[in-house]
């Protein structure tokens, strides 16, 4: 009886401490809106964001992402420069998913028309176990005559899948 109690309490506390140590490593505290891991079968999320290519003297920053959103800070140096990001979305659950909404927008304060961005198409259907990649390309327009004061573009995107 006493032994069982100790094992249960001990296991619970060890598991919680290990999880908490891990959480302190990964988490941006309370940025969990748009995340639902409560369901066992549903698990579609952004799993990785990488910088595919970056022109000389440009700064791709460190893209930040949650399960359903991603933010880039692209700092470009001169006309013609570009940075390309790859966003991987995976269906890690057991339910087939379809794209419900994809929305990208730029920071209104930091924005400049001299830097443009384009997004590739993303898979409409994402069967259980599959993954898809979205490409975001930011470009300092080559024909820019008067360089803007700020050459950084902040882009945020949300990608929402629902059950097929």
């Amino acid at each position, binding site marked *: *009886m006493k032994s069982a*109690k100790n094992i*249960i*309490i001990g296991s*619970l*506390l060890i*598991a*919680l401490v*290990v*999880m*908490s*140590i*891990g*959480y*302190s*490593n*990964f*988490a*941006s*505290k*309370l940025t*969990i*809106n*748009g*995340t*639902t*891991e*409560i*369901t*066992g*079968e*549903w*698990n*579609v999320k952004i*799993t*990785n964001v990488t910088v595919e290519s970056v022109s000389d003297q440009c700064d791709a*920053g*460190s893209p*930040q992402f949650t*399960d359903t959103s991603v933010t880039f*800070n692209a700092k470009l140096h001169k006309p013609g420069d570009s940075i390309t990001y790859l966003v991987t979305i*995976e269906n*890690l*659950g*057991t*339910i*087939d*998913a379809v794209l419900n909404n994809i929305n990208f927008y730029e920071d209104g304060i930091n924005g400049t028309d001299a830097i443009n961005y384009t997004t590739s198409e993303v898979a409409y259907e994402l*069967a*259980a*176990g599959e993954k898809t990649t979205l490409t975001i390309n930011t470009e300092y327009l080559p024909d820019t005559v008067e360089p803007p004061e700020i050459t950084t573009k902040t882009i945020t995107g949300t990608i*929402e*899948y*629902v*059950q*097929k």
Partner: protein
Amino acid sequence: MITIYLIFSSITISLIIIYILLKLNLNLFTVNNRKVLFILFFIYTILTIVLYVKNLSIYKNIVNPLFWILILIYLIIYKKDYFFHLSNKKKQIMFTIVISVIFVVFDFTIGLITGFTKSPYNHHLDSIIKNFFTIIIPLIGLEYSRCFLIIKYKHNKVSIIFITLLFILMEINYRTLINTFFNKELFFQYICSTILPIIANNILYTYLVFNSNYPLPLIYKIINKLMLIFAFFLPSMDWYMVGSLSLIKVTLFYVIYKYKFTKEKKYRNKNSFVLLTYAFTLGFATIFISFMLGLFKYEPIAILSNSMSPTFRRGDVVIFKKENSNKLTNGNIIIYSLENKFIAHRIIKTIDNNNSISFITKGDANNTPDYKNVQPNQIKGVYVFHIKYIGYPSIWLKQYFSNSKMY
């Protein structure tokens, strides 16, 4: 339409198989050999692992529901005594319903703090039918089988452990396990949010069936699944919340059930003390989780470098208080985020430019200020105090993941 077609064809196939077995009079199942079902589950578990990896869609939509329909039919036809004469456990059933509903309400109450998000489940009729077929039916078959096996093997401890292990293995999503295996961060999250709760839940389910001789886990699971399938909004939870709350809920269920349905009266008084110990542990765990999640005004952060030495050093944990940037002055140590990292440095100068405030910061041990000014929206809080050395486990884990986010 495809969904309905798949469902009907699967049910038809299963009925045909049963009919053929009856006609052939193979006596396969009528043999009073409890090992048959056991071996069948073992083979099916291996098949599950293979199919999860090879063709998840066929497994989830056809093979799995079909298998459990067959098992249910088998139990109904050949194990009538078991299936229809499960002793009525009104008190336990009511208790399980009440606890399950309380847990659902608890999840939604959490949503009031963390927010809600639209349910990913489709609410069209064909999707509801599909969910019923692919989620609810297997669940019923699985829980009745668990109950049957545990009752049959009740006096053999090794078999009970083996049955629990078997059901744990049947619930794991092997494709996700493999997909996340090579990404240490995702793998850790998957283990914490899914595998640990599966293990804890299955131990609880075994305990419930063992003690009640009734498929109580079915009631608990059905209420949870129905909430998921039919709710239009679900509480936002990240992996840490899901994992830790699952463990707490399992322990809570176990403690209350054990206390309420302990048969021996002589243990009652003793159990009051045990219950108090559990209550204290669970209360502490809940407060600890809330603290880690940042639900309080104070939050912890592990320090990775000696840039603020001698005030605090690598391996210390700093407790900071969420504070409005208007209240900050030169000399305050602030915690701010930069490119998904947390930095704890001292304000050396405040720049007020046309009502737009920013801060120049510097580590006490650094020779130069930080290369970027800190904007108010980056600030997480202000340093309150620190605890020496307890941040080292976090640092070691960080080094293991090679994904530094703190300076």
